[in-house]
């Protein structure tokens, strides 16, 4: 006998996890929409358009962080180019939004404004079909997926690892940024795509649309977490963890690491693409700066702050850093880069397992204080015991000094 797939999927997230997801879903799918649409603006619980937009944006970042954690925290592959996949998804959907403007642009032409401005006479071949919503959805997933697959295939087959891999991903996103900056490539140059008006004929600035996009982002995040939990607690996830620890040993017991890494890498990129597609209509613009190396590094910082290899840590990290960022950029914008740098150094030095690691340490300490008799036996495996208690048996932690 073996356990059916659906049961395994349900079991892969512990009960406390499902409870948290239920609460989160209630807030994001019901609470926030009601607070924005139904409550009058005078009510203290009313959420402004700005707040909903900001939270929606952060939800998209959280999806990216989860995707990053899957490949970095669990497979030990640090990508410093995940911003590229995010931006590719954004551009694929952004072009659909440009086409939805129709003749309502400032030039009143069939072509998007930036093309008229740059004297394009007709749509280039690669944007054919970009007025179709379904084709745009397909591109959102397929484009980052194909780029990641091809890049990963060559990189992993050549057994490029560690810091070398990270540097190449950084170069990749930088090269793409330069390409997208150019006017003649047909991606809108440094202005990118903006001035969106409609999705599927509906007004993009209406409160209903805002709430819909927000709820979709929340749903995507939940789906990513459930999928991620399944992956990391399955045998597939254990093979990945084994590859991270001792790749050659994995080969000698008959697994081909290339396929495992490639699958996770491509999946991670596709999730980023989806997040990018939801991000663009919520912020109203996509331009090449999204591909700047600094953006991709920031994604890694989110995950490091929250705690690698925990999934929930990625969500928390993305939330904490981005809320801090919006606070700083509103009040003292010039200090934000310093704060970010300080945060990264502080986390590396004092919180190698991030916020989640700190939480577990405190829990373990409290458990130790509560039951001094059991102290001796739990000293050696204190972190693992604590984590089993709150994150399910198959969770994999990244101890101090693990591979970057």
């Amino acid at each position, binding site marked *: *006998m*073996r*356990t059916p*797939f659906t049961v*395994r999927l349900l079991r892969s997230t512990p009960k406390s996890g499902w409870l948290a997801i239920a609460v989160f879903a209630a807030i994001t799918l019901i609470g926030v929409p009601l607070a924005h649409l139904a409550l009058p603006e005078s009510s203290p619980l009313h959420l402004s358009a700005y707040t909903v937009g900001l939270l929606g944006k952060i939800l998209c970042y959280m999806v990216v962080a989860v995707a990053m954690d899957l490949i970095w925290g669990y497979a030990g592959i640090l990508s410093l180019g995940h911003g590229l996949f995010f931006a590719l998804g954004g551009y694929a959907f952004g072009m659909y939004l440009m086409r939805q403007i129709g003749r309502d642009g400032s030039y009143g032409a069939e072509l998007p404004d930036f093309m008229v401005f740059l004297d394009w006479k007709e749509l280039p071949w690669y944007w054919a079909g970009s007025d179709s919503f379904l084709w745009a959805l397909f591109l959102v997933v*397929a484009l980052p*997926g*194909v780029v*990641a*697959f091809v890049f990963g*295939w060559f990189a992993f087959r050549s057994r490029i690892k560690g810091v070398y891999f990270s540097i190449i991903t950084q170069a990749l996103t930088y090269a793409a940024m330069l390409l997208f900056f150019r006017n003649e490539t047909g991606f809108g140059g440094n202005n990118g795509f903006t001035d969106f008006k409609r999705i599927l004929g509906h007004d993009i600035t209406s409160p209903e649309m805002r709430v819909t996009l927000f709820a979709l982002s929340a749903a995507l995040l939940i789906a990513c977490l459930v999928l991620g939990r399944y*992956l990391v607690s*399955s*045998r*597939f996830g*254990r*093979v990945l*963890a*084994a590859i991270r*620890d*001792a790749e*050659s*040993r*994995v*080969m*000698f*017991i*008959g*697994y*081909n690491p*290339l*396929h*495992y890494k*490639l*699958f996770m890498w*491509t*999946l991670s990129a*596709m999730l980023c693409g989806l997040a990018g597609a939801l991000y663009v209509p919520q912020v109203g613009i996509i331009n090449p700066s999204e591909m700047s190396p600094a953006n991709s590094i920031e994604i890694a910082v989110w995950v490091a702050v929250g705690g690698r290899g925990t999934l929930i840590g990625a969500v928390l990290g993305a939330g904490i850093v981005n809320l801090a960022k919006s606070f700083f950029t509103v009040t003292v914008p010039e200090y934000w880069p310093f704060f970010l740098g300080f945060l990264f150094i502080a986390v590396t030095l004092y919180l190698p397992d991030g916020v989640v690691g700190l939480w577990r340490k405190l829990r373990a300490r409290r458990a130790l204080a509560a039951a001094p008799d059991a102290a001796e036996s739990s000293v*050696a*495996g204190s972190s*693992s015991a604590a984590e089993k208690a709150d994150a399910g048996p198959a969770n*994999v*932690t990244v*101890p101090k000094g693990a591979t970057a």
Partner: protein
Amino acid sequence: MINLSQLDRAESAAVAQAALLANEQREQWESEATTSHLVRSGELDLSHNVILYLDDITVSFDGFRALNKLSLTIDAGELRCIIGPNGAGKTTMMDVITGKTRPDSGKAFFGQTIDLTRLTEPEIAHAGIGRKFQKPTIFERLSAFENLELAMKADKRARRTLFASLFDEDRDRIAGVLKQIRLAHEADRPAGLLSHGQKQWLEIGMLLMQEPRLLLLDEPVAGMTDDETERTAELFVSLAGKHSLMVVEHDMAFVEALGGKVTVLCEGSVLAEGDLASVQADPRVIEVYLGR
């Protein structure tokens, strides 16, 4: 899901030799989702009672000949000990057999038909050669149980592993091996917390889970207590016959306890072969061990 199908294709390419076989068996897999049908790169042919055949193997690293026209055969079911001074080429020989190192010249066959010089490491593992490294390499952050689970003979392609789960028989088998290697009470602890000797045993257990036909064991009792060493010898002797074993070891008491044929390697080729007593009496062997 475009990448899934591409992944599938890439994988089938990797097991190209078995593609036909895989197609035939696909339906069976689908219905049974069983682990008993492996993708094999050709069946192991033991018609001449030889499981491993190395002929005239030469490997050079920057002009240094790690293996120099090495020829060696191992019979099916045999327990062979390999001894030799440091730098004699013992580990390099294992690297050649497991596909980690490609020989500059020479032949390496597993059974009569499987050319080891043409296969990749995972393919060789599937064909039925298991290897234990000198330094115990286990997956430290996984439990002993999970280590054995990953090693278990199964369809190890990524898309199968994605939906793989344990059958009751698999659990029983893992429990059986845990008992055999005396780790039943440590099954759920992270393997990194085991003692050195226990790690060695765990790695031997991982080998057993793979159900290999030929086991390569590089210094399996290094760091074990006398008691553990004795038990390891018992285990190996009981495995011989059903499996073939090649053991590299410096511990002469252990080699004596195993009691099989002994091959002495020196400077990349075979210096002497025979039972331990006759090898130890060989003046050439005495010379390389005691210096000249």
